[in-house]
């Protein structure tokens, strides 16, 4: 069989944000890369750069990664100003170098948001997301309390919508892509997932008000409907979830009897 993408080496110029620590001053540094295989993933290209830096006795570039198959949400990077790079529905770890051309200059930055402070180079602190989930992104059910799994039917359409929201990988691209550094797509994904299911209904008002309050406290901005978040989201979480979040919030503060 033929290989549609023949191997060819790219020569690239990388401009990478280097920052030794959270409080240190950062700067862009330029690195030349030769003969980069188009079959490499973007992170494998950075692995090769780091090996070259170590061989020269320089400190490697710090960047977060783990599963390298687009699901753990650990990798990040603004690539030429775009969260997770140019491809739709693709995390940085799944972005492959065949997307780039010989001679390209690639600018690589950490997520941009004051709620995601830089730890080092390209690695940022996203613990704010954990604190938002802690504020209410769950169903209050103890182990052992569950009824039979089929006792509450869930229409397929609802289940699909819930799943589409639950697909969020918590990477923070939505925040990084938003001019307001808003976390509303992230928050709306969890609120929607649970509000759409009967299991999530009893505490839906408490959940949405507490999660939104925590989101505000962390310093994320509000949504002004530019939809950059949806465009950047590797899990294709839709902005219709933000509309649902707004409805859930309104319902909670205006008509809910949960006593929020």
């Amino acid at each position, binding site marked *: 069989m033929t290989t549609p993408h023949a191997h060819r080496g790219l020569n690239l110029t990388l401009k990478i944000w280097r920052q*030794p620590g959270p409080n240190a001053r950062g700067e862009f540094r330029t690195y030349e890369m030769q003969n980069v295989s188009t079959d490499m993933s973007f992170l494998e290209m950075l692995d090769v750069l*780091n090996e070259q830096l170590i061989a020269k006795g320089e400190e490697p570039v710090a960047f977060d990664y783990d599963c390298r198959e687009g699901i753990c949400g650990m990798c990040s990077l603004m690539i030429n100003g775009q969260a997770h790079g140019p491809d739709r529905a693709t995390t940085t770890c799944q972005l492959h170098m065949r997307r780039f051309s010989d001679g390209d200059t690639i600018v690589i930055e950490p997520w941009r948001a004051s709620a995601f402070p830089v730890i080092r180079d390209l690695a940022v602190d996203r613990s704010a997301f954990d604190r938002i989930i802690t504020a209410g992104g769950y169903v209050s059910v103890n182990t052992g309390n569950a009824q039979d799994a089929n006792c509450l039917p869930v229409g397929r359409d609802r289940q699909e919508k819930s799943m589409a929201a*639950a697909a969020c990988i918590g990477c923070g691209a939505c925040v990084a892509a938003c001019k307001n550094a808003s976390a509303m797509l992230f928050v709306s994904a969890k609120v929607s997932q649970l509000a759409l299911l009967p299991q999530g209904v009893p505490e839906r008002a408490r959940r949405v008000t507490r999660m939104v309050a925590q989101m505000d406290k962390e310093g994320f901005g509000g949504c002004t409907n530019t939809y950059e978040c949806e465009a950047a989201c590797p899990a294709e979480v839709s902005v219709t979830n933000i509309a649902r979040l707004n409805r859930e919030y309104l319902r909670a503060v205006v008509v809910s009897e949960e006593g929020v």
Partner: protein
Amino acid sequence: MAEGHATTTQGSPRLQSNAPTGDVTTRWDRHKFDLKLVNPANKRKFNIIVVGTGLAGSSAAASLAELGYNVKAFCFQDSPRRAHSIAAQGGINATKNYCNDGDSVWRLFYDTVKGGDFRARESNVYRLASVSTNIVDQCVSQGVPFQRDYGGLLANRSFGGAQVSRTFYARGQTGQQLLLGAYSALMRQVDLGKVKMFARREMLDLIQVDGVARGIVVRNLITGEFESHTADAVLLCTGGYGNVFYLSTNAKGCNVTAAWRCHKRGAFFANPCFTQIHPTCIPVSGDHQSKLTLMSESLRNDGRVWVPKNPGEARPANEIPDDDRDYFLERRYAAFGNLVPRDVASRAAKKACDEGFGVGETKLAVYLDFRDTIKRDGAAVVKGKYGNLFQMYAKITGEDPYSTPMRIYPAVHYTMGGLWVDYNLQTTIPGLYCLGEANFSDHGANRLGASALMQGLADGYFVIPYTIGHHFATSKLPKITDDHPEVRGAVEAAKARVNKLLGIKGSRSVESFHRALGKIMWEKCGMARNEAGLKFAEQEIAALRNEFWSNVRVMGSGEAFNQNLERAGRVADFLEFGELLVHDALTREESCGGHFREEHQTEDNEAKRNDADFCHAAAWEYTGGHDSFVGQKEQLHKEPLTFENVHLTTRSYRE
């Protein structure tokens, strides 16, 4: 193979399984009744450390906190939600029999014992099968959006090694949804103040006082600070060791360090040679490769595996007519076809490639073809079932699997071996428990698909909450403070090791050592193993380890965020552990499940077990010094395995 051979193995007195005897269906109930309890008010007096926040760790931490215990949970990632359970695709087994196809607890028990090639403990497997239904109930109640039918009830699909449909799934991202469910339960306990979460911490050592596990030493990966944490019990939920092969489907961060440090402190390591090679992975594309990506086993429900009949075949896949295709799984295994267990499918693919029938540029691949299913059901149906997997394949290879068959090749995926645990999930160190993939207990020599999620959650939600109380109720656990000599000693030892790594200042990178180790492991101890190769590997690994400790180059300092240093510590441990894995493979003179010794095969190349001599779990005790590693200091202990309910027979998936 003779059937029903009684084992001649002498059990080691050091390995008390504490598994009940008698009627297998009531063992767990009787055992739970016999365990001592801690009353609700006293539970808040006990502190538990949970290391790792995958399915086993998150579910255990949440469930124990719900009971009233004080829990500290640790993970090396930036959030507990990132643990690699998240990448599991296909599904989770439960014997609900919602499909009305004859499923039962007994059938799952039978399938799992047989699928594991008779190298797991019957008591454990029966318990696992019997709590499987509770797990699915629990997950649904947490808001896990499993796939449903139009009537609103749950859907199922089938998986390898089974002839019923018992697998529950959420698209091709079931692990993600189950982990996020467990993570939400965990974060709820953080909110309630019962769990303290410590992310970006790596466990570097175990603290023992009077032989009992009482805490851990961790390094704060952001600041580089060493911290000691003390408790009344420690739970390792730290996953498998597949990355000893460098290339695997594991996340890059997955490592054996926590388990290995505990092994060197006295926890026996069981069956390390039982490693699972998954048949459906995307083939290696070049030397830059950093990991391998799995394509869910569920694809084998509808995809057909084949190679060209002509070894020199030059036509594109779609132009090769059926007469010139060898659907080798369907041909060799009529009864199970493309759904044979993973070890069987992997070896068959390797055999096809070894004989020169491989496809693609490297010739190390076979086709997984959806042509017939697309013709039968339409592309839309296939997209609905496998859309995200097809998309993933297209992203990585640049090819469209709807129009061209996928190329797949086996890759290291899961490790059945792990720390030896008794029926209570306690290791040979009192107070140290091990859950999920990190232990050895339930899958024998081969794990069936959709059973890893089941085991991780079974251990965390439905086993450890019952068994850990017995330890608290029956042990004297005097209060320990951070200035206890054992605590300070463990911290100093961990610091010294990190400083040693930083002080070598050699010329070869950590990554290069890891790749070299992986190459040895894959070539000599991968899908097929033989005595000469294994002996060679033992020497090679020891030599590589010596070079590592004299020539590794670790950049940066210990007082900062330093990923190079993190990796160096993990690779150092893999370089010790790899030798034990190879030694175990050398010692086990039989083929079973994922462990295939070329000397032990039938005429038609199937695995040939030796029940007379090897119907046991091999548990290794390290008797050398903690600061260095000497392979010869590993002493073997055997736990005989008895099969009273599923009779020892040769596994056959042919008829």
